[in-house]
Structures are given as structure tokens and as C-alpha cells.
């Protein structure tokens, strides 16, 4: 990437210091993570072994299996062993085995331990085939992207959120034809707190459509079709963060998703999910993402929806650096890091646009190799759709000026409803207009040295360093307890899903993750 103009004269030492501090902070948390697993991580393993479907009570078989093992007290060994043991004991394929357990024919825990060698062989075989499967999907995607061509940045990113996957398809197709590069299917409001992933195609949701494997498949197929018509690769996005973070990532890997919302702290802060649960889950989730070339989107934009975007700008930077370090721990390449930030300053602030430019530019320059995800004005959008459209125009201008990568398009009806077909069209045409009409503005203007923008960016960075020093001193968990991010305080032992966390036993074995880590580590050397 060549050095863009305008640029900030960031203090390089400060940048290095910030990264070092963020690394220290996450190293500390990683020590917890390494010794824990969760029910969701285990269900991820089950899914990657090809087990899918539901039992008579609509409970997903991955839950059935993990609960079965958990209830039998065997989870600290990891679910992989039990599945392999069961397959051999019953001479069944994993899916058959799961269905039988789903019919309550037997418990995996009641089956006698099989020959260790055979079980190990079975595990290897299942793991190899699982890895081959997701590798093939990844390669198909990479090839398609190459063949159809990667559209120019900033990518135009729109959401669909009807609640009905088939209606979503209609709207996604329309959006792509109008120029959308990325389609995100927003999840139903209730889903992130479900400790299972719903099954099958769904046609009812509130404020979004359930993330299910079948829904992923339906939308991906629709986009694959329309992307041929429009002759450019169209990316599909869904949401990982929540109680099923790694499972959803596995589903994404299986269905060829391109982007997943995946933040190391979002679930804690905004969904009151247990801290350890989230930290452990995000690690597995990101390993799979890194492996499958799924770009993660972090959620710092949310902080400045509940706290002040100017006063708390450095918390965004701090969190970005933490998210980056957690991603690096999962061997993720920077290009797959969709570092989040947002244009949320009150439009009535004098010179608010200069702050926005400074903040956006800071994200761009701190993460030069990343693929920043820039979020539109939301909290100060009102029923005045015209004003909102003007705000979105300036938002688009800041993006093209500062060289952002992923442009989550602002909707003029943000304060009113999830997007109508026409709202999405208007959003796309606004962005296309501004991006084209101001195409090279980023190479044309220079920020006055020692001007407001330069100073402001450095100030935010300094404040972030100060905050990171504090976080390092007290530890990330205490910092969250103090309400550092988004003005929200969460306690270490509270939060949903804490009961799904367990300490790995001595004989814990997660062959899939080990295989993934091994490959990624290989690549990264």
C-alpha cells in the first residue's frame, strides 16, 4: 500500500508503544483462554465433523451431543474423543451416531471405551476430512473472488433484515444489482442470547433473520447467482458474536461466508455475556475465520453509540488495538481484520467533521494493512430523512477522503425502520455519487501540519496509550468491570453463558483446532 495523502504525522514510537501495551494486555487474557473450553467450542467441533440437524424437540444435534457428554461428565476431555469412540463402538458415521443419540437410543458416555489406536485413527480421519472440506470451500471462494474481480474500495456494504430469508434474498438481489458489494443478513434481535443455533430455513425474525446454516446456504447461493449477472464478486456477511460465536463461524466456514461480525468484547459489553465465555469463544471463532479467510468485523462503533464519540474516541482506538492483538493470536492476517469505527459525532457539533476526519484517518493509519470497517451515523439520525441523507453524504465523503475499506452504508431511515428497498437504493446511489465525484480527493489534499486534524489524531492516540497503560496495570477484566468501554460495566463472574465454560482436563483434545493452528502457524512463518 503506498502512502496516501492526506496522512497524519503519527508519532511512530507512540504507535509501537500502543501495540506493545495491547499485546501485553491480551497475553494476560490468553493465559486464561488457553486452559478453557466452552460448550459452544465443543459444538463447533461437532459441527465441523459434519453433524447437523435437530431432534424431535427441535434441539440441534450438536447441542444434544455436547449436552449428552456434559451430563455424563466427559466434556473436560473434549467432545471429539467421544464422537470417535461412539462411531467405532456403533460402527456409525458421526451423523448417524448423533441422530441415534438424538432419539435417545443411547448416551455416548455409556458406550465402552474402544481401542485407543482405532479411536485416534478415527479422529484423524474425521479431522482430515473436516479440514479438507473447509479448505475446499475456502479455495472455491478465493478462486471466485479472483475470477470475478474484487470491486474497488470502499466496498458498498448493505444490510437486509426482513426476518424472512426468502424476502431477504429478493432484497439482496436488488441491492446487488444497484451496486452493493457486500450483503449482511442481520440477525433476529433475540438470537445472540440463544445458546444454540436455530435450524433450517427461517421466515420469521424480529429486526433481522435468524442465522442458520440453511439460511446461510440460501443467501450464498442467491448471491453466487447474481454475482455472475453483475460480474463482480459479492461478499456475504453474518454475525458471530453472541453465545454461539465459534459455531456460527464454523457454519460460515462451511457455507462460504466472507465476513463475520466478530469482536473480542462485544458480547460481554452489549449482550451481557460472561467474560470468560466470550474470550474463549472468540479465540476458536477467530482461528476458524483466519483459516477460512473470513474477514472479521469488530464492533468498536457500538462504544460511541452509548458513550460520547469525542470524549471517548480513545476507547475506540484502545479496543481496536486489543482486537488486533487477539486476532494476531489466532494467526489472522491483517487483511482479514475489519477493524471497526464509526461516524457518530452529533451533527450539531461545530467542526464535528474535522473530528470525524481525524478519527477516521487515525484508524486508517494505525492499521495500514487492515480492511477497516467504517460505520455510518446512527444515533444522531432522526425522523428527518433529508437531514439524514445529508449526513450520509458527508460520511461517504470522509470515507473516500481517508481511504476506508468497508463502507457500511448509512440509511436515511435509520431512526425509523430496518431498511426499505428504496432506502437501500438511495444509500447505494449516495455512496456511488460521492465516491466517484470525489474519487481522488484523498490524493489531492494535505492536512495542515500542526493543524486541528493532525493534533486531534495524535491526542486520541496518546489517550489510548494512557488507557492501555491503565488496562495493563489492572488487567483487561478489571478494566471492563470499571466500565472502560461504551460506559458499560460488566462483572467478571456474571453474565450469560458462564455455565458453558469449563476447564480443559489433562486429556483434553481438540483435534480440529490443533490442525488449524498447525496450518496457520506454518503459513505465518
Amino acid at each position, binding site marked *: 500500500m503506498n502512502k496516501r495523502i492526506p496522512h497524519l504525522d503519527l508519532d511512530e514510537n507512540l504507535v509501537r508503544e500502543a501495540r506493545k501495551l495491547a499485546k501485553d494486555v491480551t497475553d494476560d487474557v490468553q493465559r486464561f483462554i488457553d486452559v478453557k473450553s466452552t460448550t459452544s467450542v465443543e459444538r463447533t467441533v461437532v459441527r465441523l465433523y459434519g453433524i447437523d440437524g435437530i431432534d424431535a424437540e427441535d434441539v440441534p444435534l450438536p447441542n444434544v451431543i455436547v449436552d449428552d457428554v456434559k451430563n455424563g461428565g466427559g466434556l473436560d476431555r473434549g467432545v471429539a474423543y467421544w464422537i470417535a469412540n461412539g462411531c467405532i463402538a456403533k460402527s456409525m458415521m458421526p451423523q448417524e451416531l448423533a441422530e441415534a443419540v438424538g432419539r435417545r437410543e443411547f448416551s455416548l458416555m455409556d458406550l465402552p471405551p474402544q481401542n485407543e489406536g482405532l479411536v485416534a485413527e478415527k479422529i484423524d480421519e474425521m479431522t482430515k476430512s473436516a479440514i479438507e472440506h473447509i479448505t475446499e470451500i475456502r479455495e472455491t471462494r478465493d478462486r471466485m473472488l479472483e475470477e470475478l474481480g474484487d470491486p474497488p474500495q470502499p466496498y458498498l456494504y448493505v444490510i437486509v433484515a426482513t426476518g424472512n430469508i426468502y424476502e431477504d434474498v429478493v432484497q439482496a438481489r436488488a441491492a446487488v444489482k444497484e451496486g452493493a458489494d457486500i450483503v449482511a443478513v442481520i440477525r433476529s434481535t433475540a438470537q445472540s442470547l440463544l445458546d444454540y443455533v436455530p435450524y433450517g430455513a427461517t421466515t420469521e425474525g424480529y429486526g433481522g433473520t435468524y442465522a442458520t446454516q440453511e439460511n446461510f446456504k440460501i443467501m450464498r447461493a442467491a448471491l453466487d447467482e447474481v454475482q455472475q449477472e453483475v460480474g463482480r464478486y459479492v461478499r456475504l456477511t453474518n454475525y458471530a458474536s453472541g453465545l454461539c460465536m465459534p459455531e456460527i463461524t464454523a457454519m460460515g466456514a462451511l457455507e462460504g461466508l466472507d465476513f463475520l461480525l466478530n469482536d473480542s468484547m462485544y458480547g460481554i459489553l452489549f449482550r451481557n455475556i460472561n467474560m470468560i465465555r466470550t474470550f474463549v469463544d472468540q479465540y476458536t471463532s477467530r482461528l476458524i475465520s483466519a483459516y477460512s479467510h473470513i474477514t472479521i468485523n469488530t464492533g468498536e462503533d457500538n462504544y460511541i453509540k452509548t458513550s460520547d464519540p469525542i470524549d471517548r474516541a480513545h476507547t475506540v482506538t484502545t479496543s481496536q488495538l486489543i482486537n488486533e492483538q487477539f486476532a494476531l493470536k489466532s494467526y489472522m492476517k491483517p487483511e482479514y481484520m475489519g477493524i471497526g469505527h464509526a461516524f457518530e459525532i452529533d451533527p450539531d457539533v461545530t467542526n464535528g467533521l474535522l473530528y470525524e476526519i481525524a478519527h477516521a484517518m487515525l484508524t486508517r493509519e494505525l492499521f495500514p494493512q487492515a480492511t477497516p470497517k467504517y460505520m455510518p451515523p446512527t444515533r444522531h439520525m432522526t425522523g428527518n430523512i433529508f437531514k439524514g441523507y445529508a449526513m450520509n453524504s458527508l460520511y461517504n465523503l470522509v470515507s473516500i477522503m481517508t481511504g476506508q475499506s468497508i463502507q457500511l452504508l448509512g440509511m436515511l431511515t435509520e431512526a425509523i425502520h430496518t431498511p426499505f*428497498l428504496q432506502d437501500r*437504493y438511495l444509500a447505494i446511489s449516495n455512496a456511488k455519487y460521492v465516491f466517484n465525484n470525489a474519487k481522488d480527493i484523498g490524493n489531492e489534499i494535505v492536512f495542515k501540519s500542526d493543524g486541528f486534524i493532525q493534533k486531534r489524531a495524535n491526542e486520541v492516540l496518546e489517550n489510548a496509550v494512557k488507557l492501555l497503560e491503565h488496562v495493563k496495570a489492572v488487567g483487561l477484566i478489571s478494566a471492563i468491570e470499571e466500565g472502560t468501554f461504551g460506559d458499560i460495566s460488566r462483572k467478571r463472574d456474571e453474565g450469560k453463558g458462564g455455565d458453558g465454560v469449563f476447564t480443559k482436563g489433562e486429556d483434553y483434545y481438540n483435534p480440529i483446532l490443533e490442525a488449524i493452528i498447525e496450518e496457520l502457524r506454518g503459513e505465518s512463518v
Partner: protein
Amino acid sequence: MNVKKVDLSRIKPYGDQMDDGAVQLSFTLPVSNGPRAREAARQLVNSMGFSEVQIVFSEDLSDDFTFFIVYGKTEKFVDYNSIKAIGVESPKMNMEQVDEYISTNIGHPIIVVGATIGTDAHTVGLDSILNMKGFHGDSGLERYRMFEVYNLGSQIAPTELAKKVREVNANVVLVSQVVTQRNIHIKHLTELVDVLEAEGLRDRVLLIAGGPRITHELAVELGYDAGFGAGTMPSDVASYIASEVAKKLL
């Protein structure tokens, strides 16, 4: 003056002269763009009682939809004299006045329980009413001397809320609903009334709903005592609570 004055018994939209009836509309029809689509749009708008309908813009949204921007002149009017403001009616007091009023007329702090119920996780609106910090410089109920506030936060099940009401012996229940897609808020709000009734708590509390798409009318229709919409100030709510609780005591 040589200019038409407003006739309040039949007010009409004003574009650039009194009673011209000018209205702007936009919508999408599920047909592809062309003269036929434009004619359909025109007929549709005509059927709403518009004349001089101008389809000023039509654009394909993919192959199956067309977006229209339309101007027309409505023949409809409204008798403004007969309109009564539908809204919460209460004397408007500031924080000191409310505290004073409660001290004098009720004599003990009012116990308030607030929550965002159901699957709704939006807390900023409710927090603006309840938290110290308040909204646009108007302090929230927590800062009032004469309110005792329990803010349960978001995604609270109706039964959980009912439990708390009983536990703290609440006088007032404040519920927020922000997500309205497919009328989920109506479902949530109705559920709460049902639970409170089933548990015999409904008559013991002043029940208030709020959120950007909540109107007083809707709230009353759903069995609430009042509803507060976009831009509500904490002191609006405080004034209303104070005067209603005082009335209840009479």
C-alpha cells in the same frame, strides 16, 4: 392583505400558497420501470385523493421493482378546530417542583421500576429517563429526591419484571420498547399487561410505556396508563407520575 388566510375549519397542506394541498410522496411498486409502471403509480396516488399528480422520478430497483417520487395536490383537509391534542396531560414541573409536589401531596418517595422488556436491548432511551445524567440537560429520575429508582436494564422477561414490582412494592412501572419491526413491541407490551393482570399487580401500579414509536394513544389502547414518544424529557415523565400518583391516593 391580499393573501389567503388559513381557514382552521379545513386546513390543507401548504406548498407555496394557502390550501394548494401540495404533498410529496415516495414509494416502490413491485413492477419494472416504464410508462406502464408510471401510469400505475399515478393511478395509485390518484386513488388516495390527489389531483395534478406528477411522477417526478422513477428508477428501476433491480428488474422487479420501481422507486417513485411523486408530487400531488391532495383534496383532503382536516378540521383543526375539532382536534384535541392526544397526549399526556399533566402540569409541567421541573425537578425541584416535582420533589416539592411529591413531598407535599404524597409524603414519601415514589418507587419506580424500569426495564426494556422482551428481546429489546435498547437501553439508551430508558436510561435517559432514569439515569442521573438524564437527557439534554434535564436530569433523570434517579437524581430526584422523591423517586426511588430500580433500573433493571434490557431484555427483561415480563415475569422477572413482575417479580421485582412485588419485591420492592413499586408504585410505577416504566417500560421501554424501541424495536417495532413486525409489531414486536405490541406483542411485548401486551404480554406484560397480561402478566401484571394475572399476578394481580396491574391495579397497584401506574403503568407507563415509552420509546420513539410509542404514542400515548397506542399505550392507552394496549392497557397502559400513558405512553411517551420521541424527545420525551425526564421531567415530563416525572411531572406526570407525581400528579397521577397523587390522584390515585385521593
